[in-house]
Every structure is written in structure tokens, then in C-alpha cells.
């Protein structure tokens, strides 16, 4: 903490966060029209995915390469339960998210008990992602295989009547995004969890010695992130109107959220959100390239990690500290 001309970096962070939330709320009234609203909704979901990846990896050093699978588990569970048993979607979204949280907690617990290093957690979760993709593609009778299935449309009630379908979709997504921003802000900046995570990330053994239960911290962070990823994944499925392997593949969710999180900065609350905004814009502009855009992302990831390792936010922070 370095007080400079009345504005501490803490309160600066707080106001920047408020501004960001305000921007998220105002955005659909600046960019109007169905096309923009769809893209903005997608962006809101990706701020959640990127934020979760950042919290897991930037917060507790758990490199989860299965964000898409966690999102997909909840989407499939929720969609299938609602489709076949007629349960309320909101109830099944909670059930699905709890399952994603359980899986994330399990993966985290196993990695910790087995003392797997970061690289091996990456392998473990990457193989889990592959298992997920193969299971949902292979179990054609349940999941509809490659083509997926259509979940029943989410009943939105009076909100939809006043705002219209697209805007309602956006505000559902953005409320989850804002909730997650606030929770992450509280976790990282306002509670002792921020310090605990910093300790765990920089020196596990020393944290154990001062009395932090490292396994518990990691498992708790993994289950919270898993739950939120699950909620976003299920809602994303209803938003798309289709739950299919292609939406929950490594290439379509993990890569983009990693690029967003790394570009924005893993250790910050705002970073992944800013990264999502910027890369949603870039994504729409490289769409015409078709499949080759994957190559573009590959190149971007290589460059980001080689040059920008600490993310955009740390660069911005350096600039603002020069100004104020």
C-alpha cells in the first residue's frame, strides 16, 4: 500500500472495479441490436470462465485445463434433467453446478494428496477434459453424440416481457459475471483469503509451517470456482439453445479463457474481465479467418507468455502509479 496524493492504491482499485461494473451494465445500451447483444452475452460468460481460470491458477497455482469439461458437466446434467424429468431449469442448474464443484474439488484433492506438481495437474486435468469430450460424443443414446441436444428454453417470466429475450439473456449472464467479480474482489482484496492464497502460491511448505492447511485452501478454491464455472456453463447452454461437445471443447472454452486471463493478468480481479472485453472484440474481428483463427490464438498465447507474463493490468498499474 502506497498512499500517493490522497488516493491509496486500494481505493483506486475499488473505484476502478465500480467503473468496470458500471461499464458492463451500460454496454448493451451503447451497442444495441441483436448481433451485439449476443456477442456481449457470450463475453459475459467468458469473463466468468476466464476469472475462474485466473483464480484457480493465479490464486492457488492449480493449472486446470478442464474449464470446458466443468462447464459441460453442469450443462449436460442440467439440460438432460430438465429435458427428461421436467424439473425446473433453475433447480437443475444448481444440481449441475454442485456436480461441477464436486468434480473440481475431487481433481484438486487428488492432485494435492498425490503431491502432483503444476505440470502434472495440467496433464491430469487435460486428460479429464479428453475423457469428458469422448464420453459425451460416445454416449449417443444419452447425450445425442456430436449433434448434442436442445435443452428446454429457460422460462424467464416477466423480465423477458419487459426487456426482450436478448437483453434478458445478457443481464442473466452479466449478473453472474458481476457477482463473480464481487466475490473474487472480496476473496482477493478484502478477506484474509487473499493473503492465504498469496502465501500458498509463493511457498507451499512455508504456508503449512505457519499453520495454513494448503490442501483445504486449494480444494475450497477449486470447489467455489467449479460451482461458478458450472453455473456459467449451464446458463451458456440455455443461451445457445444447444448443448453439444463443440461448445464445451478445449478449443472453444479453455483456450479463449486462458488467453483472456493471461492477457489481463492472472493475479488481479479486473484483469480477466478486461482481457475478455478485448479478446471478444478481437475474436469477432478474426472470425472471418475461420479455423485458422485457432492458429492466431496459438501465436498470441506464445507471444503473451514470452513477453507479457504478468498481464496487462500490471502494466496499467505501473502507468497509473506514474500518473497519480
Amino acid at each position, binding site marked *: 500500500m502506497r498512499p500517493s496524493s490522497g488516493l491509496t492504491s486500494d481505493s483506486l482499485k475499488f473505484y476502478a472495479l465500480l467503473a468496470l461494473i458500471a461499464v458492463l451494465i451500460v454496454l448493451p445500451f451503447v451497442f444495441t441490436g441483436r448481433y451485439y447483444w449476443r456477442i456481449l452475452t457470450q463475453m459475459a460468460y467468458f469473463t466468468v470462465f476466464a476469472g475462474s481460470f485466473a483464480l484457480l491458477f493465479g490464486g492457488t497455482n492449480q493449472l486446470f485445463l478442464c474449464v470446458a469439461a466443468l462447464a459441460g458437466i453442469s450443462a449436460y446434467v442440467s439440460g438432460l434433467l430438465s429435458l427428461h424429468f421436467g424439473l425446473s431449469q433453475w433447480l437443475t442448474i444448481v444440481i449441475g453446478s454442485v456436480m461441477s464443484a464436486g468434480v473440481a474439488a475431487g481433481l484438486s484433492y487428488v492432485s494435492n494428496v498425490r503431491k502432483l*506438481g503444476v505440470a502434472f495437474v495440467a496433464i491430469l486435468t487435460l486428460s479429464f477434459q479428453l475423457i469428458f469430450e469422448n464420453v459425451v460424443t460416445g454416449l449417443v443414446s444419452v447425450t445425442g453424440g456430436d449433434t448434442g441436444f436442445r435443452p428446454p428454453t429457460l422460462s424467464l417470466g416477466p423480465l423477458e416481457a419487459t426487456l426482450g429475450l436478448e437483453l434478458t439473456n445478457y443481464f442473466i449472464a452479466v449478473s453472474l459475471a458481476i457477482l463473480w467479480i464481487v466475490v473474487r474482489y472480496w476473496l482477493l482484496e478484502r478477506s484474509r483469503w487473499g493473503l492465504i492464497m498469496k502465501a500458498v502460491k509463493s511457498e507451499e511448505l512455508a504456508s503449512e509451517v505457519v499453520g495454513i492447511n494448503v490442501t483445504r485452501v486449494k480444494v475450497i478454491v477449486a470447489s467455489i470456482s467449479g460451482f461458478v464455472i458450472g453455473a456459467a456453463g449451464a446458463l451458456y447452454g440455455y443461451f445457445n439453445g444447444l448443448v453439444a461437445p463443440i461448445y464445451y471443447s478445449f478449443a472453444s472454452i479453455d483456450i479463449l479463457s486462458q488467453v483472456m486471463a493471461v492477457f489481463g493478468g492472472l493475479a488481479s480481479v479486473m484483469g480477466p474481465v478486461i482481457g475478455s472485453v478485448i479478446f471478444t472484440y478481437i475474436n469477432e474481428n478474426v472470425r472471418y479467418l475461420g479455423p485458422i483463427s485457432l492458429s492466431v490464438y*496459438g501465436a498470441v498465447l506464445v507471444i503473451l507468455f514470452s513477453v507479457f507474463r504478468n498481464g496487462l493490468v500490471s502494466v496499467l498499474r505501473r502507468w497509473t502509479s506514474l500518473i497519480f
Partner: protein
Amino acid sequence: MVAENPAVLISQLPVIIVDGVTFGLQLALVAVGITMIFGQAHILNISHGEFAVIASVSAALLIPSIGVFPATFAGVALAAAFGGFVYKVVLLPAFRSVGEQRVLLGLFITLGLYLLLHGYFTNQFPTVYLSIRPEVQTITIMGMSFRFSAILSALISLGLLMLLAALLRATIIGKAIRAVSQNETGAEITGIPIDRMRLITFVLGCGLAGAAGIMRGLAATIGPESGIEITVLALLISVVGGVRSILGTVISGVLLGIVYMVASFLVGTFMSVVIMLLAAAVVLLSRPEGILGEFE
């Protein structure tokens, strides 16, 4: 092929096992490269399977003009050369850092490289599949008829693996490579040029992955999108085999290859990947140091 009748399984078992061993040896060729590169440079190469794709796609493109043998050798050489380029240029930032930081940087840079190559190959050559079919189609051993190409592919893969083992054991270069992976500082003190040993390992490992791609084209078919599956399966095999042990890698490759083929015969391709991954998980959870590996 999904069969419910157990009698069919038993009568087909030798053929399935041969297919499994063949597949396992191919994956072991890829996994050995991953193991060696990780041991030398502490870089876990997520893009390693793409080198098999580089070799097989370029071989498939070259075969019509220059014939099977020159084309396959050119493919392998290209994969090896590209491996050298990746070491010298792409991974440069990773080698500037040490320890855990290098592992992470290496992981992400090779992840990006995988995306780049995968996007390039699936986009530029979406339909270029390598599938080499020798004129002799089947051979009969003890009354059972086996696919000749599968046997040939298994024998060549095994030969290459033995050649590699001999290289590491008996030659000066091999000894130097092993020295670097056992103790980097110690090796440097004795005057071993670490950078050159790493370069050799990279070129060798990527060449082996290229050879594995060709072998896959000989035993089955390999296309531009196969890279990631090869990488993940090979990663598992190298972890199961112990990240530092080459013999362990070969054993785990053959075992998991057999599991894969038997499962694929019984429950179909998609679920067989799942069963293989679960088998790997079970081994890993019961013996985290791998079959023959030492735990760091």
C-alpha cells in the same frame, strides 16, 4: 467394431493384442521423446504429437512425387529440423527462466505452439491422410493371419526404440545426454556442452515423434487432426512409465496400447479412450512415481 460374443473376442484376441502392441509402441516412440525432453530441459512438450502430424502430412504430400521411402524419410527429417527450430527460437524465453517458472513457461508456449500447428494443418490440409499400404497384406503365423503392415510397423518401432536405448547406453553423446538429465550442474562442471545436448535431444525426440507418425500411417491412418490425441496418450504413457525411465515408458506404452485395443474391440472407440485414461489414472494413483520411474 463392437462385439458382444465372448467367443469372438477369444478367437480374435491374438490379432487384437498385436494391434495393441503396435499402437503402444508407436505411442512409446512419442512418449520417449517427451520423457527425454522433460528430463533434459524441464519442458513438457504439449505440442509433441504435432510433430507426428508434421512428418505424416508432409510424407503424404510428397509420396506421389518422390515415392514412399524418400517421402517418409523427408517427413521425419522435417519434423526433426522443426524440433531444432522450436528449441532454438520458440522456446528461447523459457530457457531464460529456471525451475518451476521454466516448466510453466514451457508448458504454455508449447500449448500455444500446438494450437498454431493444429490450426494450420487442419485448415491447410484438412483431407491429407497418410496411409501406407504394403503389397503383402497378411501373413500367417501359427494358423492365425495377421495384418502385415501392423507387424512391420511394430518391428520398426521396436527397432527404433532399441537403437535409441543403445545410443543412450553405449555412445559418448548418449552418456552425455544422460548426464545432463541426471545432474545439470555436475554435467556442466565436467565440460559437457549442455545447450548442444539439449538441442540433440530435441531434434532426436521430435524425429522419433515424426517416425511414430509414419508408423501410425503404416499400421492405420493418421490425419492432420490426430496430434492432440497422440500427445495426450503419449503424455499419459510417459507419466505412467515414470517421467525419466525409457524402459518404463515402453512397458507402459505396450500395456496401455493393449488395454486400448481390447477396450476398443469391446466397447467402441470413444469409450476405449476413456477406459485407457482411467487405467492410466489407476496406475498413477497407486504408483505416482510410475511403473519404473524414480520419484523426484
